[in-house]
């Protein structure tokens, strides 16, 4: 049985585009080109999902959501908002009003389909609510869960906006980042910070613990790093400052591991320091050798007396750096209780050195799936790949 989607938008061209592409995906599609008729069709057709433009004349999307949610007959129909990219505030407002998800215009049709399938498949509600129910235990109330879930959604959105949208363009290098969160809000992050014409700050971090507390610490670390990274000339000094600030203020249960490095595209070097993080891998000598980058110090935020060291390594054309969080190496195959581990990761790095950085991130993600037999992850998976190219495109 195919599901019925009601699309509401005042732009006839967009409606037509949505109708065509969703019908091609096997959905039944009905359309309305203003809020009022959208409401009527929601009542008369009982669609399985509503795609709703927020900005419409006469009755806008917020009013439509309000009326849908006030009506017993239409209350349960999931709503995906269509919003312009800049309307962050509106998006949050829409989610509070009861929308299930949003897609920003101009949207990719594949993304739209994926969001629809996610909402119809109820992946969102369980994703947000199940962890809450288990955390709340005896204090569980439906209103409480609902309220927390909306806070979580807002937090997750803020956090997603802190992850780089695209990797920077650095002459002579091919760089990519990848983050797959295991929960709505995560403790992992990576960052690219241009320091001057030739130097790029690159960070990858994993905050221990989960959920909101971990996410808050993640935001603190990212903010401190961004504030100090132009003052501190060495990665070790930057990590030391982050550590000393965190060690004063945070609970001992909360701490982070992190690698911070500076890529110098003129000198073709990478200067890094690791705070108790998984060793980055360095593929070198024409792809024949993999080194672990071990220099650094203790994990961040627990020990006030921690000390850090930096190391500079040269990057020859064909060299590749792989930074990752333990969600990669600790991806587990349940059948024999085995972790993916660093050796498999080093092997996949050696055998895929021809791939562009972004493709290689996907290759690792696929390898984790093949290894574990599931796309469920107990931990966030974060990867940063830096390839030294020969300078020619």
């Amino acid at each position: 049985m195919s599901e019925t989607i009601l699309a509401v938008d005042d732009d006839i061209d967009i409606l037509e585009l949505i109708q065509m592409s969703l019908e091609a995906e096997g959905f039944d599609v009905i359309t309305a080109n203003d809020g009022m008729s959208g409401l009527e069709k929601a009542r008369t057709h009982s669609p399985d999902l509503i795609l709703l433009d927020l900005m419409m004349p006469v009755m806008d999307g917020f009013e439509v959501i309000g009326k849908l949610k006030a009506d017993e007959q239409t209350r349960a129909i999931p709503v995906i908002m269509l919003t312009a990219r800049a309307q962050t505030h509106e998006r949050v407002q829409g989610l509070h009003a009861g929308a299930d998800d949003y897609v920003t215009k101009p949207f990719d049709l594949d993304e739209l389909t994926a969001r629809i399938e996610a909402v119809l498949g109820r992946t969102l509600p369980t994703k947000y609510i199940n962890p809450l129910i288990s955390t709340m235990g005896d204090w569980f109330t439906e209103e409480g869960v609902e309220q927390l879930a909306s806070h979580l959604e807002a937090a997750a959105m803020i956090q997603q906006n802190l992850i780089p949208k695209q990797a920077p363009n650095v002459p002579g290098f091919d760089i990519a980042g990848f983050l797959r969160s295991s929960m709505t809000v995560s403790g992992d992050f990576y960052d690219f910070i241009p320091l001057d014409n030739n130097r790029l700050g690159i960070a990858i971090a994993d905050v221990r613990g989960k959920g909101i507390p971990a996410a808050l610490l993640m935001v603190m670390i990212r903010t401190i790093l961004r504030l100090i990274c132009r003052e501190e000339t060495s990665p070790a000094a930057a990590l030391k400052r982050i550590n000393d600030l965190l060690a004063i203020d945070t609970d001992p249960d909360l701490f982070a591991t992190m690698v911070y490095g500076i890529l110098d595209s003129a000198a073709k070097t990478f200067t890094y320091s690791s705070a108790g993080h998984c060793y980055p891998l360095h593929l070198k000598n024409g792809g024949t050798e993999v080194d672990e980058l071990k220099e650094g110090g203790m994990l961040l935020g627990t020990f006030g007396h921690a000390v850090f060291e930096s190391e500079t390594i040269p990057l020859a054309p064909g060299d590749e750096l792989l930074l990752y969080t333990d969600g990669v190496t600790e991806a587990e195959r349940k059948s024999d209780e085995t972790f993916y581990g660093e050796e498999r990761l080093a092997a996949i790095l050696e055998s895929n050195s021809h791939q562009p950085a972004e493709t290689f991130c996907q290759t690792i993600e696929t390898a984790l799936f093949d290894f574990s037999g599931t796309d469920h992850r107990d931990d966030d998976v974060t990867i940063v790949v830096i390839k030294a190219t020969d300078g020619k495109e």
Partner: protein
Amino acid sequence: MTVDIRKKEGVTILDIEGRIIGSDSLALKNIIDEQVAEAEEGEAKILLNLADVRMVDSSGLGIIVATYTAVQKKGGRIALLHPGGNIRSLIVMAKLVTIFDRYEDEDEAIASFHKSNN
């Protein structure tokens, strides 16, 4: 993961068996927290016997670090007995070798608590 608790010469020894991964970490934290809470101020002497621990993930190591700081706050001490295989490499990677005293002999480990108490 299973944990047996025994006391020897004022030292609380936790014999841990199995794996410390995922939710085991929280269970272990609760057990250790109880032991720390029961101890008198300055008297928390905890020895984690890891001889039969097959695998620890980073959250497991995280709990051990958190426990270290909690015990320190109470003026106590925590040490590791027989940290083998992958926990040893995790400790090395996290640069924690200077934080955790590690022993391969139980009597030596217990004696160390009495020394450090003086």
